[in-house]
């Protein structure tokens, strides 16, 4: 096609039927104009030489004006398109072109976020983005209940494929998309674009909400794309465009508020029936947005396992997992869990600082919830009663055992366990000193503090000591006072580490092996009754092991000197062991403050 077949201004090919139109226009003494740009192609007169020069000058000015309008639609500067301009504009000409482009700019479209807000929960949306490089289709949706709000690219059609004939060079192509002379017939372009859009609609936009957004509003060919989709999909929504639709979608989905509240799954014992139940500790209320932070305190489940599943779930019934991670929680005191919200379903754990995504799935975690929480799951109040007197070596072993236990509890439970240490020396034999206080110790306090109290307990004077009894009844009286009051779900334990049973409160006990009564008339059975009423488990570590039954012979018939003191059966009602076979780890297990190695770990942290 030579230049005579094109409009000298817009370079759109002339209609072959234009010749006849020119004849008719000449017969009617009228001008012949370009159908695309309106440039006068021919008139009924024959111009003279001077008029021809004036016409050439007018064409050049019109060409520059035409090109400048396209450049003003394409960008804020004409320099990127200077090579394609037919002339060099003055600043006044460029500003005039910009004013004209701005006046023609269409009204602002609603943002894509508003379109998403209007969608119901869980509904999908296909976004048709007209961009500099071509057309891209994305699918996204309304804010889900639990999972992250995302988007996915469905298809990308570059401009050359959409509209053959457009140059590969991006600036040149943008200049032509903006209306620069391209030689493409607008009618043909509309038909071609319409065909391509029809293919995309049929493939991706059937029975789904669709929105169209153009990054190049006001440019002829991009507008043709928008127009093609609106023609094909009457309910299509038009949103304000952005240069990079993917970046816009990324930003939009992150800034959406969450539809449902989020909470951290934790275990507790249900008040009333005591069954284990999973509860949610509030983290983010509905409407929270990216950038919000929340924190809760939980207790690491007891046990040797170091990893704990931190599951953020929706406040829904049933709850849906949002994010589950495996974390290393600090031992002991209530651990802090701090979470940042990066968008719907997007959570970032700030504390603990190291989390991994290798946690079991939500259904697996739920299956691991026991019917009842083990005793180890509860906050613990432990009173350690230690006999300070007796044989020096044995007394030292008793103190060492309790010291090891306190160190272990400090490591494992920290402030969750409150421990009191109570020790007793012997009652003075001489009646003159009978009112001397033989009990010392401290209050319920963290294990580390209790360990210091233990270290400060007095040592007995050297020399003989009472053979049959020790003032255990005085220590039990102190323990009963310490473990009094509302239990509030705490596990209460009395650990007696002693070798000699208590003095009777009155009388002399066994007439064959009599013992003097407590000078303070303290009745150890009354103290035990108080402890039992307060729900205290009684565990004893005695110097000597419990005598084994001789087959065919009842224990009471055995040697009286080897007969076990009946007090140990009471004070070791929950468990009894002996000093020779006890160690801190095993003792912690039988005390119930640390789980047995065979017990399956709890799946979630505990409500503090």
């Amino acid at each position: 096609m030579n230049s005579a077949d094109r409009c000298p201004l817009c370079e759109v090919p002339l209609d072959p039927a234009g010749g006849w139109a020119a004849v008719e226009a000449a017969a009617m003494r009228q001008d012949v104009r370009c159908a695309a740009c309106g440039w006068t192609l021919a008139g009924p007169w024959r111009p003279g030489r001077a008029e021809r020069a004036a016409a050439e000058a007018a064409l050049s000015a019109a060409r520059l004006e035409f090109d400048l309008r396209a450049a003003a639609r394409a960008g804020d500067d004409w320099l990127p398109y200077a090579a394609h301009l037919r002339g060099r504009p003055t600043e006044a000409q460029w500003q005039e072109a910009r004013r004209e482009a701005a006046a023609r700019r269409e009204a602002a479209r609603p943002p894509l976020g508003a379109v998403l807000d209007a969608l119901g929960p869980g509904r999908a949306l296909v976004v048709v983005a007209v961009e500099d490089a071509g057309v891209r289709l994305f699918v996204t949706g309304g804010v889900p209940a639990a999972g992250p709000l995302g988007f996915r690219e469905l298809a990308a059609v570059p401009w050359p494929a959409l509209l053959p004939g457009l140059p590969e060079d991006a600036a040149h192509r943008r200049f032509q998309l903006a209306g620069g002379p391209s030689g493409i017939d607008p009618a043909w372009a509309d038909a071609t674009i319409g065909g391509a859009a029809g293919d995309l609609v049929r493939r991706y936009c059937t029975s789904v909400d669709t929105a169209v957004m153009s990054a190049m509003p006001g440019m002829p060919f991009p507008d043709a794309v928008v127009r093609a989709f609106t023609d094909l999909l009457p309910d299509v929504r038009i949103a304000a465009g952005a240069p990079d639709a993917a970046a816009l979608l990324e930003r939009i989905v992150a800034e959406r508020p969450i539809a449902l509240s989020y909470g951290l799954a934790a275990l507790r014992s249900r008040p009333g029936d005591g069954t284990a139940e999973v509860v949610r500790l509030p983290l983010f209320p509905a409407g929270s947005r990216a950038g919000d932070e929340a924190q809760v305190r939980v207790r690491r489940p007891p046990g040797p396992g170091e990893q704990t599943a931190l599951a953020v779930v929706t406040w829904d019934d049933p709850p849906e997992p949002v994010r589950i991670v495996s974390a290393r929680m600090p031992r002991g005191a209530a651990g802090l869990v701090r979470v940042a919200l990066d968008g719907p379903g997007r959570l970032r754990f700030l504390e603990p600082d190291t989390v991994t995504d290798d946690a079991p799935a939500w259904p697996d975690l739920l299956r691991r919830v026991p019917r009842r929480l083990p005793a180890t799951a509860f906050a613990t109040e432990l009173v350690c009663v230690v006999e300070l007197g007796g044989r020096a070596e044995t007394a030292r072993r008793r103190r060492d055992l309790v010291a090891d236990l306190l160190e272990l509890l400090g490591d494992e439970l920290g402030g969750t366990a409150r421990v009191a240490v109570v020790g007793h020396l012997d009652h003075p034999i001489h009646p003159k000193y009978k009112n001397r206080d033989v009990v010392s110790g401290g209050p319920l306090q963290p294990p580390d503090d209790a360990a210091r109290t233990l270290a400060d307990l007095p040592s007995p004077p050297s020399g003989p000591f009472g053979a049959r009894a020790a003032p255990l009844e005085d220590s039990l009286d102190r323990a009963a006072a310490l473990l009094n009051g509302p239990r509030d779900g705490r596990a209460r334990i009395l650990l007696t580490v002693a070798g000699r049973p208590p003095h009777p409160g009155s009388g002399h006990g066994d007439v064959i092996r009599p013992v003097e009564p407590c000078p303070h008339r303290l009745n150890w059975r009354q103290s035990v009754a108080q402890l039992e009423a307060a729900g205290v488990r009684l565990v004893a570590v005695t110097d000597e092991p419990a005598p084994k039954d001789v087959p065919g012979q009842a224990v009471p018939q055995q040697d009286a000197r080897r007969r076990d003191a009946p007090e140990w059966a009471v004070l070791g009602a929950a468990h009894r062991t002996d000093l020779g076979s006890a160690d801190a780890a095993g003792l912690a297990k039988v005390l119930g403050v640390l789980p047995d190695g065979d017990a399956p770990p709890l799946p979630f942290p505990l409500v503090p």
Partner: protein
Amino acid sequence: MTEPSPTEEARTGEPAAGPPQPPPPQPRRIGLWGAPTCGKTTFLAALRIAAEEGGHDVRLVGCNRASTEFLADTTRQLKIERRFVPATRELPPNLAWQLHGTQIKKVRPETGRLRFKRRRPVPYTVTLDMMDAPGGMFSSRPEDRAAREPSSGLRFSSSAGDGESGDGGGGDAEERLVRHLAGCDGLLFLFDPTREREMNDAYAFFQRTVLQISELAGTSGVDHKLPHHLAVCITKFDHPEVYERAVRLGYVTPPASIFGMPRVDETRALEFFEDLYRGTHAHDPVNSLLRGIRSHFGEARTRYFVTSAIGFYRDPVENRFQPEDYLNIAEQSDGGDGLAGEDRFRIRGDVAPINVLEPVMWLAGNVGA
């Protein structure tokens, strides 16, 4: 009864001085006899405390240095140190004291027209000539006499022997002891109920010795029994095993005052002795012992006492017997077997002997009467 007494022996070495004196009255001698750990040594040690603090108008003094020192040492240990007297480990020299007191007697005046008998206080002096022998010497079992191991349990022993003492376990010592007992006018036989429940050996200790005594002593002039007066002391009344039994069987006489101590009346002591082990495995051996006593000693010359050398504990504030806290000993340990018997038990409160002086006074008032 021709065995020279310690007082005679003591006098033998003294130079004769002054004009010749009429021969002194033959001393009335009392021998102490019982199984190991029955409390013979502590019984002796409690005598002086009982004499001074028991409400009796008597005075007990030693006849020789050993006896005086024994009195002083044992009184200090029991009363001040609140420790038991160490067990007898070898046959000590005979201990002799003089018990000075006053008796109400019907006495015929030596002068005057009306010479019928009148009741009047008569001062008297009794010489107690005791030999505190290790209990093992009284055993009928040779191994006991040879070994004489210290016993354990709630008792303190006078029977412990180390086996190396020169004359403790030899035949000479045994013969001397038997001759001593045979020569006594009265015998104190101590029976430890706590030991009997565990060892059942009181009869064994009794029967051999009584046969040996019979061999030397002959019979009394009025019957075929031995001539001795016998005070059978059921010891350790303060032990809960004995006291609780006595209470349960109704033998305990309530204290005369709130400051007094419970007792078993002498008139019911034999009955209590018979009932003490009724229904237990120790009943038959004790019956054998009782039959042996009745077989060898005249009933009129035998009396039973329920005694306690240290008595019951009295709270220093309340200063009276309290049934909920009366045990006067506290057993101690060093964590091993290192404590000797006298260190193993400490006395909690004041020593208040029960029926310790009474059997001695009964013997003193009857032997030679």
